[in-house]
């Protein structure tokens, strides 16, 4: 009896298992709550560090292949044990704390960075009714907790009493604070059109439910893919602005100024070694997962992907492939793009970084909000092309305004 309800809609297997488990523990409700809490936190704390390990391997292999090298292939098969080797090495490395440093702040910085990195994950909808904390104010909670991560970076920079890390810390503050504005403004468009801050509603807004529940399998697949926000003009620009600002929020290239290794040695991480450095490293990667997870939820349709209904079940909402498969696939696609960008682009200078945020991204995000508003009222066949044209015009216009001081393209004479 249990088996066929589980098999009835395969993508809800884990959720149904939880319900069966809860039914068994009917005796005392406290245990059911405990099981609920456990099931929503333990996977987060287990899966995401595993993703962190996989990504370090992916990054080193990807960067190596971009640079025509082979990348780690000695530790284990194809270098797959390299993350474990790095982890053990980090554990064994001596944890040097400079004598003049402010001990408490130096110790607290990595801890304070991990707290927002992990708590922020609780807001992301991994699959249909599989969301750790279905908060009605999901997106605002995400940004509130995300903004805490600025503090530990600066604390690390300041507390190590080293000139380079002080410079790194100041750059980190300036960069994170000023890139939060375009980040939030680009989400305003999605929230405005969905009409709610709840992440689950945002994902459901990007699905055409009557097609999904219809009989025609082609329409089912289209229903889950066609209505993603990224395929609308305002959605695509919003996604670009969101992605670029998220690169700045997590200090990834081309915005990795706080730990610019060619200028200020390792920025705020100069005086960190051993496991504290590994914690910083993990904090950066987990917040990269979190913010690309939000990008997937807001613009790439969360857990909905080209999915077919299993022929043996008559429940219209059943799907074959569980939602979280699509969620993690899209998230890793964004991570791969970040790695690709890291392999190509050089770093921005501090004042260009500021000018880019305040003079280019923010105005573009504001214009994007107007276009999203107009898109909402205009019929689609007008809204789509008009939106595209207006956005492209603003994109080029702002670009030209910001690059006036550079002068024309250089032509070189030969003596």
């Amino acid at each position, binding site marked *: 009896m249990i088996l066929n309800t589980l098999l009835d809609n395969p993508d809800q297997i884990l959720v149904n298992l939880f319900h069966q488990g809860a039914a068994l523990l009917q005796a005392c409700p406290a245990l059911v709550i405990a099981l609920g809490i456990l099931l929503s936190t333990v996977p987060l704390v287990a899966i995401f560090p595993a993703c962190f390990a996989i990504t370090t391997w992916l990054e080193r292999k990807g960067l190596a292949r971009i*640079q025509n090298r082979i990348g780690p292939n000695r530790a284990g098969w194809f270098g797959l044990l390299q993350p474990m080797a790095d982890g053990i090495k980090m554990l064994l490395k001596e944890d040097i704390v400079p004598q003049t440093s402010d001990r408490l702040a130096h110790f607290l910085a990595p801890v304070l960075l991990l707290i927002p990195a992990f708590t922020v994950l609780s807001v992301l909808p991994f699959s249909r009714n599989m969301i750790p904390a279905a908060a009605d104010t999901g997106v605002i909670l995400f940004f509130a907790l995300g903004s805490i991560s600025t503090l530990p970076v600066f604390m690390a920079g300041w507390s190590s009493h080293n000139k380079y890390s002080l*410079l790194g810390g100041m750059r980190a503050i300036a960069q994170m604070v000023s890139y939060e504005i375009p980040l939030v403004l680009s989400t305003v468009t999605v929230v405005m059109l969905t009409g709610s801050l709840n992440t689950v509603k945002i994902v459901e807004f990007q699905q055409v439910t009557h097609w999904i529940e219809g009989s025609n399998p082609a329409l089912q697949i289209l229903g889950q893919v066609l209505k993603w926000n990224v395929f609308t003009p305002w959605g695509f620009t919003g996604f670009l602005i969101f992605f670029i600002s998220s690169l700045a929020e997590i200090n990834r*290239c081309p915005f990795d100024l706080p730990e610019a290794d060619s*200028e200020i040695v390792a920025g705020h991480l100069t005086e960190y070694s051993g496991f504290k450095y590994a914690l910083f490293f993990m904090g950066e990667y987990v917040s990269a997962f979190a913010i690309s997870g939000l990008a997937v939820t807001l613009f790439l349709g969360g857990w909905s992907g080209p999915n077919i209904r299993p022929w043996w079940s008559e429940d219209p909402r059943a799907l074959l492939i569980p939602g979280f498969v699509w969620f993690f696939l899209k998230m890793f696609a964004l991570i791969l793009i970040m790695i690709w960008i890291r392999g*190509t682009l*050089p*770093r921005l200078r501090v004042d260009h970084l500021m000018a880019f945020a305040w003079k280019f991204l923010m105005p573009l995000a504001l214009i994007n909000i107007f276009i999203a508003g107009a898109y909402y009222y205009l019929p689609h066949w007008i809204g789509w092309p008009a939106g595209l044209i207006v956005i492209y015009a603003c994109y080029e216009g702002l670009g030209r305004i910001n690059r006036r001081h*550079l002068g024309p393209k250089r032509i070189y004479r030969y*003596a």
Partner: protein
Amino acid sequence: MNPASTLPESPVLPPRDYQVYSGDDLATNVLEVAMGPQHPSTHGVFRMDVSLDGETVVKLKPVFGYLHRNHEKIAENVTYLSSMPYTDRLDYFCSMTNNWAYAMTVEKLTGIAVPERAEYIRVIMAELTRLQNHASLVGFFVNDLGASGTPLLYAMREREHILDLFEWASGARMMCNYFRFGGCRNDLPPGWLQQCRKVVDAFPAFMDEFEKLLTENEIIISRTQKVGILPRPLAINAGITGPMLRASGVDYDIRKVDNYGIYNRFNFRVPLGEVGDCYDRFMLRLLEMHESVSILKQALDSIPEGPVIGDVKARNFRPKVGEAYGRIEAPKGELGFFLVSDGSPKPYRYRVRPPSLINLTVLEDMCLGHKIADAVIILGSVDIVLGEVDR
């Protein structure tokens, strides 16, 4: 043709007395940072004592000498031939051009003739050195900008092909010690010229890819244009030579001025910059690589057969009393050797004119007023190699 007059005047910089604004309320104090010998982007053991007002460079004092190996004093106690291997260690990126400059100076001192084939080999080796030096320089320069090593490794991949050629001909990849007074140590092994032709033909494909990756990149353009401007009068007065001088618009290439070796037989052009900022220096080196490829093609087509070295005694080689100064267009600038001989097998005085050191003297003028991130890439665009700076 008077070089200075024809070009538009590049912007003259305000005077160097940049004071820190210590007004009444928001005076920020100056941060003294020693970007010391142990720093990821100083191309070797070189220290810059930078004092920063916030991020802007207020004062910059280059400190070098960490790699001083007393090369010139040793050369005075060792025979002429024995100091040839030491010239490889001057600018360890282009050992072939160092050997050529030293061999040419001794030939000028003693009047030894160099056979035809040896002259062609020297031009081929020098241009191959220029290719791999400029390629790896552009790689290091973009690496200082922050691209995590990708252009550098593309350049290193091409440099490997050229270093394999050097190893095949001279026995060592970087410390070639291949030229002798009056020619080369041994003839090119059979099959070397065909392999060299293959490498030279494959080079333009790499350069198109390299330029497509770098030249229109908006981030590189906004970070290098109008940064580290070297005005033409300052460049001429400070004795700057090589791509840095030509980037400021002065038409001075020793291959054209002196016509040493057999450079007058090849037609090649000398690219010139306009503003003289980091972007011009970066583009100059890419354009010079194109020119070197065309020279190599012409040289490989017309290299004759014949002996590779005149009849020079290896042991107790005693040049007549006198002095000579020979200079060539090394990839970094004008590399010169000044030899005074008193008739004994050991030179009386042995002096090297290092282009990197002299190009380094204007570092502070270029860096004032810029951010610390710019100071790093201005140093990168000057292209110094500490072996040559400290000798």
